[in-house]
């Protein structure tokens, strides 16, 4: 997974640091930040395949707000929500806003890896679909390609 890059957002520093270290140890390009604001900052300069996002972060932006912003700036990035308590309402809201799935803390790394794999596959499929569509468009209506890309 050479080009597999992950952003972890969680206000629990101990958790964040350890998870980042463990993913990096598995040769996954991982960045950890402790707030939604920092996550958005980081995403300005770097493209991530998957974002692991804690829903409940007291102070500053909470998970749902952050998710909304992420989806605005990088619609193709898949988001896995993490939560300490399984509020169905929040999770469903998150799913409606385009989150890939949600996981309940505490999580085993193995489970997370499976979920990451699934998320990556989905993203890959999505990208391929978009590429194909773009190529088709390019062949049929050469003049409109630029415009359509912008709309996405």
């Amino acid at each position, binding site marked *: 997974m050479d080009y597999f890059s992950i952003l972890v957002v969680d206000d*629990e520093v*101990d*958790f964040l640091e*350890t*998870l980042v*270290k*463990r993913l990096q*140890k598995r040769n996954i390009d991982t960045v950890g930040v402790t707030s939604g604001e920092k996550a958005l900052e980081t995403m300005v300069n770097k493209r991530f395949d998957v974002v692991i996002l804690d829903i*409940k972060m007291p102070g500053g932006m909470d998970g749902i707000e952050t998710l909304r912003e992420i989806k605005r700036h990088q619609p193709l990035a898949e988001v896995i929500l993490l939560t*300490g*308590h*399984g*509020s*169905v*309402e929040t999770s469903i809201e998150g799913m409606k806003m385009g989150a890939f799935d949600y996981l*309940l*803390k*505490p*999580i*085993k*790394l193995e489970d997370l890896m499976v979920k990451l794999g699934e998320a990556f596959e989905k993203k890959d499929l999505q990208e391929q679909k978009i590429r194909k569509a773009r190529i088709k468009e390019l062949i049929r209506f050469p003049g409109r390609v630029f415009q359509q890309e912008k709309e996405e």
Partner: protein
Amino acid sequence: MKERLYRSLQQKSIALTLVVSLAPLLILGATLYHQFENTCREKTREQISYRAQAQAEAIDLFLKERTAILNAMADTHTFQHMIDTQNLTRIFEVMNARAGAFVDLGIIDNTGTHRAYVGPYDLRGRNYIDQPWFNEVMIKGHYKSDVYMGFRQQPHFIIAVRRHENQQAWILRATIDPNRLEEIIRSARIGRTGDAYLVNRQGVFQTRSRFEGAVLSKANLDTRQFGGRITVIEMKDHTGEDCLYAGSWLNDNKWLLVINQQPLELLSRLFALRQMEMVIITLGVLGIVATTIFTTRLVINRLKRTDLEMIELNAQLVQSDKLAALGKMAAGVAHEINNPLAVILQKTGWMEDLLEEEDFQNCENLDEFQKSIAKIEEHVERARKVVHNMLGYARRMEPRQEDVDVNDTIQQTITLLENHARINNIDIQIDLADSIPIIASDQAQLQQVFLNLLNNAIDAIGSNGSIDVVSLREDDRIVVRIKDDGPGLSDEMIRKIFDPFYTTKEPGKGTGLGLWVSHSIMAKMGGNIHVKNNPDRGAIFTVEIPIVIPEKK
């Protein structure tokens, strides 16, 4: 304590009702009892007094009539004419034809010698100069005697009048049959005990008494008790009974007419009436007492039942409130615990990762480290499960709405447990009502509730027993009862059975969350779940599911 309250309430209510309803009845009864008797006694006195007066007037009239006739005869005939026996006989016949009751008639001259006589006795020639009445009539001009025997040895009395003729006085004298007096009086003898008679001032009978003696015998009566014209007195008669005596003086106060009567006899109809009144009042009292006790008991029992229902309802409300609060708290606690658990799990994972590195592979305690880490992870997992069960509640906040056949759900759940039950030799009996409609509800959640209850029932029985599952429709709810024949529940268990972490199973066997979650599910659905002991044996769990008709698609 409560029981005493009800009893005191019941007693007070009965007492008050009885006092209020019986008092007027009893007062009325007592008034009737006394007033009636007094009035009737008064009436009796009046009546007897009136009778005495009427009879006395009749006798007085009788005497006056006789006296008047004698006077008339004496005034209209001369002495010479009278002493002729033939003439006297004619006069005597006229007198008896006009008035009657004359026994004989005689003429006595101023020397006291009987000069002429008509009658059954031969009294001519007898001399009365020594008789006290002769002097009296000579002085006063008229005389009426008491009843006496005289020469003839027959009770009789006389009326004599004096006439002056040519400076000579003579006397016309007649004997009256006293039986005629009795005939007049007799009509005043009323009933079995009534009597009427005449006595003179000395208390000697002038007419025969019905009960107390013959003419001229002495009456057991003090005539001085009777003053004025009419007197009514009450005393014992010859039989010892209370008796009313009415006396009226007549014949220039020489004779006393006495009428006596036992008032009891006259009052007997009143007494019968009074007895009937008493019977009616007694029946009324009994009726009121019985009705009061009956209705009061009825009311108190209903009150008791309502109170009991209220208490039960309150207990259920308290239970629901408690569980709702616990649910909120549990969700909060779960979050606070899950975060540290997540950190611990990552840290141990990191340690495992590091132990994979070559530097540690030769460490002699590597095995111990790995074992310790595994143990930590195992216990984190255990804690996680507990928290997830609690979160299970929170996650089930919103039940889904799908078409659910409750009977079908019960069947499915029982199928899941059939093997488990059979192994423990537990028989599951099913009695499901046909009338149960398809409802909009959450089948998975209902199944979890049934599963929890059936599992608990099997655990409660242990082995060898039976479980009855009944479904039925009650108004707007479906009621499912799960009844086991296990040991039943203590009061404390019934109180706490739906609390989280309350379990009677061995440590590690149950989390104590099953019934709590079940209760929460049912509360969220708008239904209910409660438990009570079966009076025979075991416990009965009752699940109430609201009937929500699915929307047409």
